Every structure is written in C-alpha cells, then in structure tokens.
C-alpha cells in the first residue's frame, strides 16, 4: 500500500537494503511489497523450454521419469510445432494471412517429419557404436533438441520480417538464413548436451573414457543426421 505521509509519525523504518530505488517522497509499507528474492524462486519448476535451453540435466531428469516422459515428449512436440509455425506465419504475414497460415503448417509439419526421418539413422548408429539409446528416450532427446532450436527461432521472426521489409534482396534472405543457422546451432548444442546428460544420468557410475568416446560419436552423428533432415525441411518450408 502506498500512502501519503502526513507527519513524522508516519516515517517508516529503514528502506530495504538491496533492491530497486524507491521514491524518497513516498512512505512504503514494506509488508505489501513482494521480496525481490522471490523472483528467482526455485520452488516453482521452470517451463520445459527453459530447461531445454539452459539446464540439460533437469530436462533429462524429466525424460528418465516414466511418468513425466510422455508429457516431456508431447510438450517438446507442441513447442516445435507452435514455434516453427509462428516463425513462418510472422515472416510471411505480408503475403496475406491465408498464405502465411499455409506456410506455418508446412514448416511445422516438415520439421516434425524431419525429426522422424532422422530417428532411424541415429538409432542405427547407436546400435553400431554399442551405445543403444532406448527409442522413447531418443525420441524425447531429439524432439527436445529441436524444440530448443525452435524456441530461439520463433522470436527471431519479427526481426527477419522487419529486415525483409527494408531490403528484400539482401537483408531479408540473409537474416532468414542467419535465423535458421542460429536455431540450428542451438539445436545442435542441445542434442550434444542432452545425449551426454542422458548417458551420465542413466548409468550407475561416471562415464569411462570409452563411454565418452562412443557417446561423442553418437552425438556428432545425431547432429549430422538431424542437421541434414531439418535443413532440408527448413529449406523447403522457407523457399517453396
């Protein structure tokens, strides 16, 4: 509650030690002001997309929990579909809402198909290097990694649209390709981090050098296959 002071009797105690600068002309009742420490309240579980972006261990913990695995997969799938769809819709909005909506459906669908197409080769690689990943966890990891990339892709859409409006010969296409490249880098980093975190969390002990080596091969091959199929999907979606 903010009150107008009427005299010295209303002088409050010392102001909060840290925190934001408050008006010296107003008396604040500290009880009604939320503590700024609560902004980083760890008790509230962060969203799946925040975990995927910055905390692979927490994301992997969801995948290893059988009751949370399904919601992690569905959540990643929806994140991929919504974020890539939103990207295409915003970038192509000037061409008309109907065309933008069809572009959104196309990009979202082709990205999901690309993940499905990369699944088989990556699974086969995991068999060959003696590092088989159970299918449900592999699906969760791949969708999670692409979801992390898609979360970064979607907010770049307004910037691409702005630059495309300014210069559709150079700035527009360059910014479009750059947005895809940034998103691909994030997805590649995420697939690497998620596979390593999954290997560490699944086993009873720390990874040996040989385990590290095989997980490294699998992570790099996953990046190659996923990069190949998703790049094709985004190329088709963006330049159809």
């Amino acid at each position, binding site marked *: 509650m903010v009150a107008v002071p009427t005299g010295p009797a209303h002088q409050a105690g010392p102001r909060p030690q840290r925190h934001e600068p408050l008006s010296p002309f107003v008396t604040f009742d500290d009880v009604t002001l939320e*503590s700024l420490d*609560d902004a980083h309240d760890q008790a509230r579980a962060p969203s799946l997309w925040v975990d995927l972006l910055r*905390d692979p261990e927490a994301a992997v913990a969801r995948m290893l929990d059988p009751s949370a695995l399904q919601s992690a997969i569905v959540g990643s799938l929806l994140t991929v579909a919504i974020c890539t769809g939103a990207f295409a819709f915003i970038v192509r909005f000037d061409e008309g809402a109907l065309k933008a909506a069809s572009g959104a459906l196309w990009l979202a669908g082709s990205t999901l198909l690309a993940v499905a197409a990369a699944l088989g080769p990556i699974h086969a690689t995991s068999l060959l290097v003696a590092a088989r990943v159970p299918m449900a966890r592999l699906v969760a990891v791949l969708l999670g990694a692409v979801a992390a990339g898609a979360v970064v892709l979607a907010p770049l859409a*307004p910037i691409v649209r702005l630059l495309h409006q300014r210069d559709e010969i150079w700035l527009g296409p360059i910014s479009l390709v750059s947005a895809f490249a940034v998103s691909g880098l994030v997805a590649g980093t995420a697939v690497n981090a998620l596979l390593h975190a999954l290997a560490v969390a699944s086993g009873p002990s720390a990874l040996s050098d040989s385990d590290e080596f095989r997980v490294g091969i699998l992570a790099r091959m996953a990046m190659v296959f996923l990069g190949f199929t998703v790049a094709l999907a985004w190329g088709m979606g963006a330049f159809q």
Partner: protein
Amino acid sequence: MAAPPLLASLLRAADAPAHEAVRLSRAPLIQTIAPAAIGLIGLSSSALAVAAMRGNGGQAGDALTAILESVLTISPITLVLAAWGTPSSTPQQPSAASQRPGPIAPPRVVAAALGLGFLTAGWVTVGLVPLAAFTALVSSRTGWALDAFGLLVAVAALGSVAMVFARILQAIDSGSGTRMAARLFALSLFGVFVVRAQPWITRLSHGVKLW
C-alpha cells in the same frame, strides 16, 4: 489518507515496479496484461490528442504503429535471452534438484516488466499532452513544432518502456551482464524504432522551415 485500491495498485506499479513485477509473475496472466492495456489506452489517447492539435489524426497511427512494432519486434527475443542467461548474483542458494542458478529473469517477470513499462509509457505521454497544447497555442505560423512533438511523444514512450525494463532487471539481479542486457534492450528498441519510423522522420524533416 490511503489511496483507493485501484489507484493504490497503479501507484505501486509506478513507484515500485520491480516488486510489482515479482507479484505479477505469480498472479494470473490477465493481471500482467491489464497494466499494459491501461498504458496502451493512455499512449493512444495522448498520440491522438497531439495529432488532433496538428489537425492530422493519421500521424497518431504512424506513431503508435512504430512504437508497438518496435516493442513487439524486440520483446520475444528478450524474453528468451533473459530466460537463457545466467545471473551474476543469485539471491539464494540453488536447490538440490538443480545445481545451476536460475535465469536472469524468469519469462513471467520479463513479461510483467514489459507490461509495467507500457503502463509508465502511457502515464508519461499523458503528462506531455498539456505541453503539446501549449506548443499548439504558441506555434501558430507553421505546424512543424507539433509534428516534432509527436516524435517526442513516441521517443518518450519507448524511453519509458526501456527505463522500467532496465530498472526491474537490475533490481532483481545487479550484475554487469544484466546491466549490459538492459542497455542492449534499449538500443535495439530505438534501433528498430528508427528503422520503422524512418519515412515519418524524413517527412517531418522536409516540413521543417527554420526561416
């Protein structure tokens, strides 16, 4: 004498935006949208009032579009980057479940910061309307002073959004990374505004006659 509850909550949002942003991050999303909507109403009214004094209502649309597009272009990536970045000072120990500290600002706090920024922007621009009316009275010969005033309203609105955002972010994490992030937000906001409003600014500069 205590202010009425609605006014008190508005005053609290203006006086202690960081505390209010933390409170809003827990409340239903509609409570984050409400101050933004109130600010937007104030912003539109003042832009319309300034343009009407010039006798050119269309200019209000120019100003509002440029402001809104600047904020809408920059805020999504800000939301993601704020969730991604790691703060330099964590106010409490990370929990056992996750050994890493939380993000610079959780997405809901950033959304609340933008909403409160709009509220302050509406408030500030409404405060500029009397000055616009005074300018309209004293600058009778040409209208360029009022045109320039329209630009000032837009810049003041964007400055308010950037200032409130920086204030909230730095209150919940005082590290140098956060300070840089707040500056980058302000720079990008004005950068997009200049790109968006360039035709308007060019038109304005053609109207200027100094003698």
